[in-house]
């Protein structure tokens, strides 16, 4: 287990005890990452900022329930950021137009040039067995938060068809990955 992961767990332990300064330390270390997550999904800074606040308040409330045996700390933080962003996106019914990248938007494409871990290599190998369209749909759903309805419009296919493709993709991932 790497050093940052240990530090994140320590912060989460302290936050679970109600330590506000630990939340601030955690924010300093992780907010760039989580803002990258929510900005990619929501595109507009005003929405992304709101989702980021919401994410850390969720983290504050849920820290006592964090269990390292289920999920690495960073992944757990990303989970809360994605939930906050997706809830806001769905609640507002942000359509494709509304979340279309603004001119000069800072939300960058996921960067395939980053150094990646074995788990990700394994998952990408698994995704590589899918057809190009379903694979792209899965990635758009994960990184950009596109709903079934939005994917249906973009890929010009009925929503149930989209769902069938997604389920097939998820089955593939389930077969190819053995968590724990």
């Amino acid at each position, binding site marked *: 287990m790497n050093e940052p992961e240990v530090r994140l767990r320590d912060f989460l332990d302290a936050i679970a005890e109600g330590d506000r300064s630990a939340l601030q330390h955690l924010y300093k270390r992780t907010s760039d990452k989580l803002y990258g997550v929510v900005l990619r999904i929501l595109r507009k800074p005003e929405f992304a*900022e709101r989702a980021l606040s919401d994410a850390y308040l969720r983290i504050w409330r849920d820290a006592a329930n964090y269990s390292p045996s289920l999920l690495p700390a960073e992944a757990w933080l990303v989970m809360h950021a994605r939930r906050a962003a997706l809830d806001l996106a769905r609640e507002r019914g942000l359509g494709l137009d509304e979340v279309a990248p603004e001119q000069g938007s800072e939300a960058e494409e996921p960067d395939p040039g980053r150094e990646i871990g074995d788990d990700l290599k394994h998952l990408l190998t698994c995704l590589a067995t899918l057809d190009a369209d379903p694979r792209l749909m899965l990635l758009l759903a994960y990184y950009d938060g*596109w709903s*079934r309805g939005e994917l249906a419009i973009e890929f010009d296919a009925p929503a149930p068809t989209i769902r069938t493709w997604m389920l097939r993709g998820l089955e593939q991932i389930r077969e190819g990955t053995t968590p724990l």
Partner: protein
Amino acid sequence: MKITDDTDLLVGEYVLGTLESDERAKLEEIAAREPTVAAAIMVWERRLAPLHELIVPVAPPDTVWPEIEKQLPHEDQNSRFRDPVFLEVVQALAQSYKADTAMGLVQRMRRWRSLAVLFGAAALFLAAYLGATLLRGH
């Protein structure tokens, strides 16, 4: 409750993020009362988590943290440690009794969140102190 294959894939859709608003809410409601569904969510989170490695970090504006801080519960404001009378009593005790022990207790008590625990401990502390003084007096 053992979850079916279909439910497990629905959980996968939830974690991936393709469900619509009402479907998300429904699944969260079920997960809140069905530990097996909640567990399935975490398994899917773990399966998809490696994807986050590719996310490009972006620095948020400086205005966000103060907003978060504002929304945190202000537990200290309700605390007896903000109550001047209580503080005065503790300080008086600290001076007249064993200074370091009393301040040590204040330090430790700052860490306790529950007011019930706090009041209980303060009462015990005062009772013990008063008891000790009274005994010494006689």
